[in-house]
């Protein structure tokens, strides 16, 4: 009995119609898989090849060279050291803040929580460029203090790097600790109080120990973020002459004389470190040592801060003033100065820098618009590809699902700078050029690399979205005669609309402000936003237009987010549908 005989069953069906659908389905599946292979597997495989079997060198030689020369391994030590330091400093801010915002009557808690998210989503190099504008010789602090900024050189040091990373990354600890606090609820603390324990004692003996796994998981995330961060390494780290792993990878690939094998070895080590850290983290979360009953936990009475209220409020405001206020105030102020040399005179303020960005077709509006186009294009293509892959993971069983799951999870761990290096190794091979595939050094490859870097995250986010769709809705369509594409287009996509819009938006913003992939892969003479910003900030004379461009980019992205929210979220029917889906 063959498959081909089966359509007789569907008495009304037109035989060739389903055959056509079948072919189209297979083509779509094949194209999606090929995309994943080319965009993720191929670059990472070439990266590993480069490190393990470098051309014309001993196998594994690059690793030996990395770990035997101080100038190479110093970056590893620096990165890990800064990572550990920032874990401590970030938790010194994040944990108290979590307790304050979740358990006390501190005024303005909602605003502070929103600010935590703003900090969380702000690209690290924007923050550190803001700090550069503030701190560098001739920067904003210098101008306000009459060229007497005492930190102008000491800030560009490991201290400054740790400071900026701390205030950029404490939201990770905050969010982990908050989630922990909310899951624990009040019962355990109340039970301890009833048993005769004082409030402080109950906290020290009951609440903090219960929070430990969550906080530890948050700390590991901070560590992973530090060692994979390129934005701060490439700005303050570069200026401080303090080598970090990500910057070394970049330098080996993008600074003369280039050394691909060393870059690959360092990248591999970086990925392994990330993998180890995140592996431990997911283990911690899965095997949480304390089974806390969740769901029914009620939130406890707020702790009244009493006389401390205003002092604590002041400290909280200070945290955000340092994290966001200082760098961005400095950036805005400098962007409005016509000539930074003239300082804070009233006549010196105006929109000249903005005008010059808008008229500069090369490093100004040209680069900005290139990033807008690239990020809209890449976000859209990423959405399409990730939805297909999501659907395959969701509906497939067995080996295919296992492979797709692993590819997307593993590539999520790969830092952008490593992925970018993989793209260079993969697409800058002589045989590809000989075969007529001259992708290296083109905007198309940059676009593809954005997709390769973002698609895994999009898949994981879409998976959590699609899992909220009742499986029977898809079963019902299948029984009604729908094949994969029909299912996707008619059933799955409409139901996932909200998730699709938000994932698109997130991808768009990330790509718009991408630095690592752009720095390594932008075609010569065609800089993107991040590349142009770094170039402008590298030269004091351009810092005015640099800050103006940064503000224009942030303004543009905020406008896009706002417009999309108005168009899509204000959609009463979408909300009804979402509600209905839960009810039905």
């Amino acid at each position, binding site marked *: 009995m063959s498959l081909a005989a089966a359509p007789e069953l569907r008495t009304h069906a037109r035989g060739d119609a389903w055959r056509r659908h079948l072919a189209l389905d297979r083509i779509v599946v094949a194209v999606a898989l090929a995309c994943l292979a080319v965009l993720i597997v191929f670059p990472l495989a070439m990266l590993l090849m480069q490190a393990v079997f470098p051309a014309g060198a001993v196998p594994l030689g690059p690793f030996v060279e990395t770990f035997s*020369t*101080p*100038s190479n391994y*110093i970056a590893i030590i620096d990165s890990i050291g800064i990572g550990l330091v920032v874990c401590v400093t970030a938790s010194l801010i994040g944990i108290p803040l979590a307790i304050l915002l979740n358990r006390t009557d501190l005024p303005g808690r909602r605003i502070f929580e929103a600010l935590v998210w703003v900090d969380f989503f702000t690209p690290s190099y924007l923050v550190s460029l803001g700090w550069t504008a503030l701190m*560098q*010789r*001739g920067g904003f602090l210098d101008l306000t203090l009459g*060229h007497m900024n005492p930190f*102008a*050189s000491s800030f*560009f040091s490991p201290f400054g790097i740790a400071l900026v990373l701390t205030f950029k990354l404490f939201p990770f600890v905050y969010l982990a600790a908050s989630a922990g606090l909310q899951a624990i609820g009040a019962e355990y603390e109340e039970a301890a109080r009833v048993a005769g324990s004082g409030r402080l004692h109950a906290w020290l003996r009951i609440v903090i120990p219960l929070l430990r796994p969550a906080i530890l998981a948050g700390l590991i995330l901070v560590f992973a973020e530090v060692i994979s961060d390129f934005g701060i390494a490439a700005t303050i780290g*570069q*200026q401080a*002459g303090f*080598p970090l792993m990500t910057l070394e990878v970049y*330098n080996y*690939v*993008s*600074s*003369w*004389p*280039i050394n691909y094998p060393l870059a690959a070895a360092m990248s591999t080590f970086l990925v392994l470190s990330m993998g180890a850290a995140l592996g431990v983290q997911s283990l911690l979360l899965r095997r949480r040592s304390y089974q806390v009953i969740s769901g029914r936990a009620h939130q406890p009475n707020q702790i009244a801060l009493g006389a401390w209220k205003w002092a604590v409020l002041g400290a909280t405001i200070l945290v955000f003033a340092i994290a966001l206020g200082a760098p961005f105030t400095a950036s805005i102020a400098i962007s409005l100065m016509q000539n930074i*040399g003239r300082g804070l005179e009233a006549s010196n303020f105006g929109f000249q820098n903005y005008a010059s960005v808008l008229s500069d077709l*090369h490093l100004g509006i040209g680069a900005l618009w290139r990033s*807008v*186009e*690239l990020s*809209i*294009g*890449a976000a*859209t*293509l990423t959405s399409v590809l990730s939805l297909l892959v999501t659907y395959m993971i969701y509906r497939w069983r067995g080996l295919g699902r296992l492979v797709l799951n692993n590819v997307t999870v593993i590539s999520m761990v790969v830092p952008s700078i490593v992925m970018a290096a993989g793209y*260079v190794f993969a697409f*800058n*091979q*002589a045989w590809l*050029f000989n075969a007529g595939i*001259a992708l*290296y*050094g*083109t*905007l*198309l490859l*940059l*676009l593809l690399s954005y997709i390769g870097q973002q698609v895994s995250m999009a898949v994981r986010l879409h998976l959590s979205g699609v899992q909220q769709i009742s499986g029977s809705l898809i079963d019902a369509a299948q029984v009604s005669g729908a094949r994969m594409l029909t299912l996707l287009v008619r059933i799955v996509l409409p139901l996932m609309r909200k998730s699709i819009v938000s994932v698109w938006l997130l991808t768009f913003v990330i790509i718009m402000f991408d630095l690592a992939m752009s720095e390594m892969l932008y*075609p*010569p*003479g*065609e800089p993107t936003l991040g590349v142009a910003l770094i*170039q402008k900030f*590298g*030269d*004091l*004379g351009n810092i005015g237009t640099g800050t103006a461009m940064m503000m224009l980019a942030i303004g543009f992205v905020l406008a896009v987010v706002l*417009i*999309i929210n108005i*168009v*899509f979220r*204000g*959609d009463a029917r979408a909300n009804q549908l979402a509600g209905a889906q839960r009810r039905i």
Partner: protein
Amino acid sequence: MADPEERYPQAFVSRVSRRQVLRGGLMLGVGAPVLGTFLEACGSNTGSGGGAALQLYSSTDTAQQVADAFAKQSGTKVNNYNDDAGVVLARIEAETAHPRADVYLLSDAEGMAGLAQQGRLLAYMSPQRNTMTDLALKVSDPTGLFTAVGLSGAGSFIYNTKALTAAQAPVDWPDLLKAQFKDQIAITDPAFSGPSYGAIFGILQRMGTDAGWQYITALFHNGMKVFKTNTPTLAAVEAGGRSVALAQDSAAFYDKVAKGAPLAVNYASSGTVLQGDVIAIEAKSANLSAARAFVDYVLSATGQTTEIGDAATGKGVSGDAWIIPVQPNVTQDSARVATGINWTIVDLAKAAQQEADIKAKFKTLAGAA
């Protein structure tokens, strides 16, 4: 009650809401750039083979002005990619299998010599070389693989006149090891700056390799600090955080002096490296006639005015405007010190061969310090 079958079609009459219009517009707004990006991305694929436009890779600060002036004069469009010398050289090396540029204009003669050794450059004896100064020919390849377009001093002693009187300022290399300069010396990172590498190589060439490295180690022991590019190096000295910079006497320096910054320069009595900004043609360039025309233009007296900046009007002055021209009879700013300097001419071929090793060793010493 109406027949449901008749009533039903109304269900399909979609009421076009404002939101749908908005959404449609948004989709269009998204769709157009997607298409645009693709076309643009595919378009840029054609690379240098396209013919018309000249692709220039440059690391000199006036490259854009020169390119613009050439485009205006010749009508040939120039795409200029400009970045730090180290970054541009890395690009060029990375593109070995498939070069995209036609002309290289680099502030790094050693790096350019390296490219020449790899066979990446096309020999071209521009007719303009006939009138060039002897000094300029000293940093040009005799076979025409690359030619100097501007000259400056690498590893000049740029000092803060508030911190040091003219009498206190260093006049030769050994002075820098004095206790007076403990934690006071700034240098630009040779990994990124061609002139800085030239200065380091000059030390090794003058003193001999072993003594040279001992001297550099001693500099680090005396607290020498490495900054990425000339900008932060000069800024550190201008602000007084450091009193002396080992840096290129670049336009940025003269620009600061002109604006009243407390800076002055000394040239070491035992020798300062003559640093050439050099131009060359990519061996695989498919746009040779335009490339040759561009080289001729940059080396011509007209081009030189743009290359070094128009001192009289101040127009086009940015970056390397105060560098020494390669043609005689090009008017130069009077502030520029151009005579009485004991120039060291480095062996560019040797400097190129040893570049990776020397930079690695320098990095190790910097890391250990």
